[in-house]
């Protein structure tokens, strides 16, 4: 029998799964915002700010989920300060300790970037001074983006590392979970930011093709890592016989196969229409076509983003809950 089967489960259930999901979205959105900010052109700045605008609200869901999941929620501050004597509590070799600090620090980055982005956004509420937009501008803005992106990548991946640094079946049997969660977080965030950009249209449209390519690259990496992960586990994959296998299947079908197929179909349609417009069609039809698809067929529909997000949630649930169900209850 595998040694990992003599261990006890952590009782980490839906609260933790949902935290992994929101943490990944927040981190991924921030990374996308930062990449567009640091390496994109001026016409992508609005979409870059959108990344920051999505990041903070997703992040705000995390601390309540984590604190409520504790059996002694009122003691959550023991994660940051020694409880029996003055001093800072930090253990770099404990994923939960370093993750708690990273979440706190990433929260600071995400907050400042959010304020900077909101101040420069058409949605700026009247009570927010416009001059706070300097928080996202110039060299300071870039340093903030770079630092925040580092923490964001950490948040996206450490949750997988946390699961692996145990003795539990599935989790501790591969080193791939952090990588898998990072890829999945990036794919889901690209779809989410792409969806909001599509809805807002106008200045947010120029970044759509890149967001869509980013989503596909991340989804492809996720698929490859998932296959490698299953191959790595070998016979242990039997844990997904039953309800958790349905979740895993949903993760693959909803989160990976369906969105890729959807964009493929739409890209085909777009290409066909583009050819028709360029070829025999009249000038009028041409104008109509380009008016129909300002994002070059890269808009994310509600269905598209819904599928990807459901897939991302299902992936985390399938991995967390399948292991939780094994070993001595």
């Amino acid at each position, binding site marked *: 029998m595998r040694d990992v089967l003599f261990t006890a489960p952590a009782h980490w259930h839906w609260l933790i799964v949902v935290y992994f999901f929101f943490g990944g979205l927040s981190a991924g959105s921030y*990374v996308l915002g930062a990449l567009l900010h640091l390496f*994109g052109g001026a016409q992508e700045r609005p979409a870059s700010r959108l990344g920051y605008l999505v990041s903070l609200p997703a992040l705000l869901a995390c601390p309540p989920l984590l604190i409520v999941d504790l059996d002694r929620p009122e003691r959550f501050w023991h994660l940051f300060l020694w409880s029996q004597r003055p001093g800072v509590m930090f253990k770099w070799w404990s994923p939960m300790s370093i993750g708690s600090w990273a979440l706190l620090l990433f929260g600071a980055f995400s907050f400042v970037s959010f304020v900077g982005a909101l101040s420069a956004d058409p949605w700026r509420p009247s009570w927010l001074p416009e001059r706070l937009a300097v928080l996202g501008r110039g060299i300071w803005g870039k340093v903030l983006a770079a630092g925040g992106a580092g923490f964001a990548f950490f948040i996206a991946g450490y949750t997988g590392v946390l699961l692996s640094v145990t003795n*539990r079946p599935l989790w501790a049997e591969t080193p791939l979970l*952090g990588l898998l969660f990072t890829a999945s977080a990036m794919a889901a965030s690209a779809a989410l930011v792409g969806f909001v950009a599509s809805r807002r249209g106008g200045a947010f449209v120029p970044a759509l093709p890149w967001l869509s390519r980013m989503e596909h690259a991340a989804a492809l990496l996720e698929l490859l890592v998932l296959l490698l992960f299953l191959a790595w586990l070998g016979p242990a994959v039997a844990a997904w016989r039953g309800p958790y296998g349905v979740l895993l299947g949903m993760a693959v079908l909803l989160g990976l196969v369906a969105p890729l197929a959807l964009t493929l179909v739409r890209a085909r349609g777009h290409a066909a229409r583009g050819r028709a417009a360029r070829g025999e069609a009249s000038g009028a039809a041409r104008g109509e076509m380009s008016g129909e698809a300002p994002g070059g067929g890269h808009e994310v529909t509600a269905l598209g983003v819904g599928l990807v997000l459901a897939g991302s949630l299902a992936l985390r649930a399938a991995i967390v809950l399948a292991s939780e169900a094994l070993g001595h209850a």
Partner: protein
Amino acid sequence: MAEPMGFFTDTTVCIGCKACEVACKSWNQISSTNGGQNVLSGDSYDNTRKLDGEHWRHVKFIEQFSEDRVSESRWLMMSDVCKHCVQAGCLEVCPTGAIIRTEFDTVVIQQDACIGCRACLPACPFGVIDINPVTHTAQKCTLCYDRMQVGMTPACAQACPTASIQFGPLVQLRKKAEDRVAQLHSQGKEEAYIYGDEAILGGLNSFYLLVDNPEVYGLPVAPKLPSRNLWRSSFAAAFGAAVLGLWGLVSLRTRKRGAKAEGPSSGDGGGDGGKKGAAP
């Protein structure tokens, strides 16, 4: 530091009376409510079932009977407990410093510091720890830290009527265990061996004399520290971040150059990298 102390549990003389369980519960004032549930195993004479927050000692019954209950019948007993590992997985992952190593080289969860995050539960290679439903904190055997501090024997060892559980300085216990194994070997019980020497997690301060494979007793053959996965898992995640970050960077850069080279095909090109599909 005081001398390292521990338990030597000789399973060959255990009679399954569960006196240790009772003594442990009564000294440590552990509730017997099972979180309000009346839990019976249903397939065994053992109804404690496992170590958890309310059961710091668990006498395992290994009941091996054939269908007719005659041709094969064997009953092994083992009083299981926290192993007080020299390299302890639970201590390693605890994010609050609630789990400490004492002056007796034992591992204790400080109840006033534990936040119930449950990180130690999956980290223990033996599945020893669980949440106590009354205190809502992670609990396990303390090797009677309070008794030891005043020179008393832990409650279970004191109560054990067959000296299956022996308590003392580790050096003496190791010697005793060696002698016992030699004695059993000389009596023809060649299968007797010690589980928990230095080869396992730097040594288990609570170790066992067994007469069958560890798995038969529900013990892992080669228990490991959770941190063995820390670096390789982190590197894989960092690799993923680097690939996606670089891919984002490169695709943004080349797209800008590509768009420039292509020129303003739709007449709205100008500016920093006009977009192919941009609306006029």
